């Protein structure tokens, strides 16, 4: 296993957000994490990248415990996050935003040239402020910025948030090419149909616990509704 969590608990002050998550991710796998608002999906990703603190042994990456390490150290080890809401740097241009990803100092296939070839719009707008782009283009910049760190695992938090369906389809259309480079991906997604379509396995969170897990193409609407909302559809 490339990434594994064992009995992962997370807290915001006294409030517990995750209640013992056991999770595993194989190299090259695409896993979708679904769940309602407040289910703990984003907290889970934040724990993996060190924004939310976790016990050292609760997260093991490539055989090494990484729980609680600083975010900078975790990205240098090969886990990158595309944060919810994109969070581009407003005072940086598109190209400068992308170059920020290379601070991790990891070598790999993802370079500015490669990204510009894959997303020509980025090259066309490389000198414009990142936040002046459309929502979909900003999301592409956020994905490109994470790829620039040449991660082994890419975590995508709510890529579709606030975007039109056609834009969401365009963004997810890039995922196979990214996975083809050997990338392992966790996608947090509220849109169940999209999550099932782009992933090999679905893990459903409910109130900070895993309520369902299985192959994306084998789970039924009823099973997911039960796990998603806690009630039968």
């Amino acid at each position, binding site marked *: 296993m490339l990434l594994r969590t064992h009995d992962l608990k997370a807290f915001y002050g006294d409030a517990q957000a995750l209640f013992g998550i056991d999770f595993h991710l194989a190299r090259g796998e695409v896993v979708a994490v679904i769940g309602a608002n407040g289910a703990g999906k984003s907290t889970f990703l934040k724990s993996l*990248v060190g*924004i939310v603190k976790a016990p050292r042994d609760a997260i093991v990456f490539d055989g090494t415990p990484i729980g609680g390490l*600083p*975010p*900078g150290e975790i*990205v*240098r080890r090969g886990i*990158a*996050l595309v*944060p919810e809401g994109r*969070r581009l*740097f*407003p*005072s*940086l*241009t598109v190209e*400068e935003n992308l*170059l*920020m*990803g290379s*601070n*991790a*100092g990891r070598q790999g296939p993802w370079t500015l040239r490669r990204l510009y070839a894959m997303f020509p719009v980025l090259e066309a707008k490389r000198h414009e*402020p990142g936040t002046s782009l459309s929502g979909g283009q900003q999301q592409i910049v956020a994905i490109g*910025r994470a790829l620039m*760190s040449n991660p082994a695992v890419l975590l995508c938090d709510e890529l579709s948030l606030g975007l039109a369906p056609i834009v969401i389809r365009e963004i997810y259309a890039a995922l196979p090419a990214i996975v083809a480079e050997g990338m392992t991906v966790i996608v947090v997604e509220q849109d169940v149909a999209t999550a099932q379509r782009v992933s090999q396995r679905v893990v459903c969170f409910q109130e900070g616990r895993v309520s369902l897990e299985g192959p994306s193409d084998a789970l039924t609407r009823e099973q997911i509704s039960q796990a998603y909302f806690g009630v039968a559809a």
Partner: protein
Amino acid sequence: MIDTVVQGLLLGGLYCLFALGQSLMFGVMRLTNTAQGDFIVLAAFGAIALAAATRLGFAWVALAMLPVAFGLGYVLQRVVLNGTLGRDPLPSLVVTFGMSIVIQNGLLEMFSADPRSLDSGGLNVQSIGLPGGVAVGVLPLVTLAVALAATAALQALFGRTALGRAFRAVSDDSETAELMGMNAGRVYALATAIAFVLVLVAGVLQAMRTTVSPSDGPLLLLFAFEAVIIGGMGSFWGTFVGAMVLGLTQQIGFRLDPGWGIWFGHLVFLAVLVLRPQGLFPKTRG
């Protein structure tokens, strides 16, 4: 009239150097250093003491102190000021205010209240004659040139280098910057280290231009604040222009009445606060 304008701009050069470090620290960390003036005075006394002990000229003294100022700024930010950063500006204000008191009393204890100055090798009495009977002091001219060069260098650093990109990124969103592998605490420390190099330059030039005493800090802080706020917080060229406006208005005030100069500067500062509180050129963006 021409003489007033020229002298005002030259005075603005010194104020710009007082203010640039403040502008840099606010621009990167949203930290208002209320001990800025006292650190300038500390640098001035450090230079005076080193010159007296070694008999070196002011240029060698300044060069020798550069790494000390850089190191002091770096360590101060990493060890003390990083712990005060956050959404609430009060902790950093209180801590730097405390530093201000410590520096003033420490200098009083070590050097007494006597004003002192740094030997400029005669630079402070040399002047260049211009047509129309206007005489321009060499030291104020050098100060203005240094201020101009420092402003341009900071602007280039911010807009064209990887370090400047890091400064802007942590200023925008330090948490996301850390997700990119950046150590925000280290970036902040580098910003303060550079600010302290500017503080050193300002302190040395101030001690060469006039006398300094341990209680001068608050007035220098006031001039720095006024220049930064007139120009716009976090904007280097704005700070430069703000310092020029301050120097010019003070000089016009002095021309009208010797007691009005500082007061005129305060009036312009208040007018900007009321009419354009964001300053003339708010926030540098590359």
